[in-house]
């Protein structure tokens, strides 16, 4: 079972929900939590587990071999991303612009641009008791999150059987990285807050998930602030409300110190039970 936790807007409590739900579930059964917000991975701040393995993740980029090159200019012509440039008698490659499409490399008549691996980020694998935690982290300056997300998903698929509950903390927004992070999920939990910003961004997220034909449910965080528009919208759209996590300064304080909230607050535990009942 693959459950993705997403939100249109950042900072609505996606990571809070992912880490609390994963830890709570792991009190009884095996759970794998994966942080796919590779630009700003935060779940790890709330999880105490032991490092099992760390591995570098690579993307493939072309490397110019001067001796083989005839300066025909095809590589520059076929690169839609301006990542390969011919400068006089030299070919320059700009790795961060490269999308690893292999066109320059494979269309080069003299094999002067073989693809070589370049580090784009790091995957860490942690484990304690029944909880496994996987996190990937994009190197600063690397601009494309999608290849790293995709490799992280592969890693999880390869190492854990399908029967295990897998939770994915998705990046915020509705663009490519979110699509990549949610496209294989069996269920998507959308986290929002009952404010105009929350509602506006929830609508975007719902539209996105409709496009992907995903089954969704909404968790309203900081319930009690703002107004009822989010509840009304969910009713109109026929999206189940899985939980309402109350607004409280106590929660904000626990969160700020990197603590799990359900352990201290029984009312939160109750809400988590509601989610589990609905999905599993």
């Amino acid at each position, binding site marked *: 079972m693959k459950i993705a936790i997403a939100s*249109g*807007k*950042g*900072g*609505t*409590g996606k*990571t809070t929900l992912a880490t609390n739900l994963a830890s709570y579930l792991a009190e009884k059964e095996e759970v794998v939590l994966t942080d796919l917000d590779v*630009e*700003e991975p*935060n779940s790890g*701040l709330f999880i105490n587990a032991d490092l099992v393995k760390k591995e570098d993740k690579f993307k493939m980029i072309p490397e110019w071999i001067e001796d083989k090159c005839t300066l025909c200019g095809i590589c520059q012509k*076929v690169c*839609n*991303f301006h990542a390969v440039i011919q400068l006089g008698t030299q070919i320059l490659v700009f790795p961060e612009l490269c*999308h*690893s*499409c*292999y*066109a320059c490399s*494979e*269309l080069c008549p003299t094999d002067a641009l073989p693809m070589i691996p370049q580090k784009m980020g790091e995957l860490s694998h942690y484990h304690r008791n029944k909880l496994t935690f996987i996190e990937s982290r*994009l190197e*600063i*300056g690397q*601009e*494309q*999150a999608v290849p790293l997300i995709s490799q992280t998903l592969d890693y999880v698929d390869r190492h854990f059987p399908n029967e295990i509950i897998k939770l994915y903390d998705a*990046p*915020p*927004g*509705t*663009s*490519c990285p*979110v*699509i990549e992070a949610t*496209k294989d999920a069996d269920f998507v939990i959308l986290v929002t807050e009952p*404010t*105009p*910003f929350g509602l*506006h*961004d929830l609508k*975007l997220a719902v*539209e*996105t998930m409709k*496009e*992907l034909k995903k089954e969704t449910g909404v968790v309203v965080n900081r319930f009690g*602030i*703002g*107004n009822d528009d989010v509840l009304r919208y969910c009713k109109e759209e026929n999206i189940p409300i899985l939980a309402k996590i109350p607004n409280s*300064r106590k929660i*904000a*304080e626990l*969160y*700020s*110190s*990197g603590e799990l909230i359900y352990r201290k607050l029984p009312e939160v535990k109750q809400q988590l039970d509601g989610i589990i009942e609905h999905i599993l």
Partner: protein
Amino acid sequence: MKEIVVISGKGGTGKTSVTASFAYLGGEETVVADCDVDAADMHLLLQPDFSKAEDFYSGEVAIINQDECIKCGKCAEVCRFDAIPIIDTQYIVQPLDCEGCGYCARVCPTNAITNESQNVGQWYISNIKTGSVMVHAKLAIGADNSGKLVAKVKNEAKLLAKNRNSDFIIIDGSPGVGCPVVSSLSGANFVVLVTEPSVSGLHDLKRVYKLVKKFNIKAGCIINKFDINENVTKEIGEFLKKENIAHISNLPYDDNFTKAMTVGQTIVEFDKGQLQTILTESWSKVKQLTINN
């Protein structure tokens, strides 16, 4: 004309509320740009009239003309993004997976593949309630937020600011550390970092500041909800000192942040108390720091 960008790394720190307040305080002299195109929210506070709307195209997507396709499968073979599956005996490009590299079209023996530019959203110029103008955008669902739409919003804002002889452009930047933020930062004169004293807030602040440093832009920081966790607030203070980032102000945890938003107002309009005072002082400081820079 000076460009001020507000960013946060982490979402939900109050970045947009702070930016909208600055826009309000900046009044007619300040052109506003919402570069958080993936989840644009500032229009909810500034009441734009969407007086000009235009489609935006960026990147390409491959399309296979089935009449000319001889089903040789070369395109699918070279596609590194698995974007060309066979559906009902036809090779069909999946737009959400296609990167627009154009490789398939180059190897197609019958030239059955063309690349078409992709509509990735809309952008707008609006009159807003501050008496100024705002440039904003809406990214299409699942579109590649490559930073190009962000760049477009910024460039249009710059043109407007130039024509109006505005003193400032205030920009609501994108979250994260990827392409869109890079586009929001490029060419900026000053960066305002809005953070909160949580372990995640600090973590993301450090990450996004690494990026700001690469651009060599001066920065200042506002700590929102500073009283939630005094220890982390202290830690942030130390980080700011070490990095030589101006500590602009601390904002207390205050329900008026949400209440203002709920009635579609900026904080400085809604709140007549401490938030208004601190934000007004903060805006003066930001202007000063930007000009002295």
